[in-house]
Structure formats: C-alpha cells, structure tokens
C-alpha cells in the first residue's frame, strides 16, 4: 500500500498496518508525538488497534521538551 506520511509518499509491502507497526517499520523511536490520520487524532492507547489503509494521509509531529 501507499500512504502519505508528512506529505511524502511512502510504500509498505502489507495491504494495511497498525499505527504501532508503522512506527516500528519506520524506526520512529522517539516517544512523544502526535499522530493524525486523515485529520483525526489517534491517541496513544489506540496505536495498536488503529489500522492505516492504502491512500491514508498520515501526519506525525514530534514533541520536543523545551519552552
């Protein structure tokens, strides 16, 4: 499947993957982040149960300490 990840096209061999799988596959290890799929926020407790499908628009924002 193909998705948009932060406005860039990304390809995965699976037909659909969970948010948790995507984080592992892309080696996104930094813990504090916001993820939105097609404009809907996915809270952290839903990463395992939320599935990303072909054509989805995924936005990820890292939250760095400091302010």
């Amino acid at each position: 499947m193909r998705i948009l990840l932060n406005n860039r096209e990304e390809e995965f061999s699976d037909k659909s993957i969970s948010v948790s799988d995507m984080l592992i596959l892309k080696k996104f290890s930094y813990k504090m982040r916001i993820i939105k799929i097609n404009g809907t926020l996915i809270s952290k407790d839903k990463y395992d149960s939320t599935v990303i499908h072909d054509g989805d628009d995924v936005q990820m924002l890292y939250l760095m300490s400091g302010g």
Partner: protein
Amino acid sequence: MRFSEVKNHLSKFTVGIAGAGGLGSNCAVALARSGVGTLVIVDYDVIETPNLNRQYYFKSQVGLMKTVALEENIRNIDPEVKVISHQKKLDKFNIAEIFSGCNIIVEAFDSSEMKEILIETVQILLPGIPIIVGSGMAGWGKTNEITSRKIDDTLYVCGDESTEVSENMPPIAPRVGIVANMQANLVIEILMKIKY
C-alpha cells in the same frame, strides 16, 4: 491596514496560553502589544532566577507566581488587555473547561509529556479550536532551521522539531523568543482572517 484597525479587530478575540514560561510569557506579551483583547493564561509555577534567561519576568519578580507576574507585566504594557489567569496544573480533566471560550490555544509547556496531553485533549474535546504547538527550540544558532508548519486547520507547529532541551542544550532567550513570537504571529494571522 493601519495598526489601529488591526488592534481593533484583535481586541474582539480570546487566546488561551497553556504555560507561562519561556514560550508562554513571551507569546502573551507579543499578543498583548498587538492588541488581542483577552488572554487566558494558565500556569502553576513560581518564578526562579534561572528562568530569567528567557522568560518575560524581572529580578524583582523572583518568587512570585508566574501568572501574577505576567498579568502585572501585561498591565504595565497595556491595561486594556483583559487577562484571565488560572493558578493550576492543567490535566485531561480541566483543559476543556478552562479553554472552551478561546478562539485559539497556544501550547507553551516545557515538558513533552504535557504538550502531548494538551494537544490530544484539545483536539478531541475542543474540535475546531486551532492549537499552535512549540516544538524544538533548545540551544543557540541554527536560526533557519526554525520554521512554522500547518498540519491542518486546527493544528500548527513552530520550532525546529528536533532539538530537545537537556543539560548541555539549554533553552536560551533568542531561540525560545523566536518560537514564542512565531506562535504569536500565527495567532494574529489566523485571527485576522476571521470576519467578526
């Protein structure tokens, strides 16, 4: 458009500021100077001397609650700006109530955990209210790596999105001030587009 017209337009709006540290104090002052009518400022901390390297406070204010000192500083800039301050720690259960009347919310926390809680809660419980996040402003230099980015109509981020504060990468006035003022600038840009 003349500044008097800008100020008159901005005076009709309410902006929430979550945290009154480096981002929040500088952003609040920029918004007050620009003429934003009402600021809802939330913080539970007291000013300490190390804060003075970036936060909009003065030596004489060390020991005061940040909300109290910021209200005083804003009053000294423009007494017409209405400040509603809350001395409390924001959490999942009080965020929606405190910020429900705001047109925009500025995320101005220090800790990434608090940033996450605030953004998640606002996006879920206050849908439609834009939130302007600050992420990545530690250290010095690298001015051109600081940007602002629109994720969608309700979520914006200012910062370099990569530098994290640590012992050897402290937050210092210029980069924190740049991000705080970028957040304020985005607030004004969004509010100026709203017909009132």
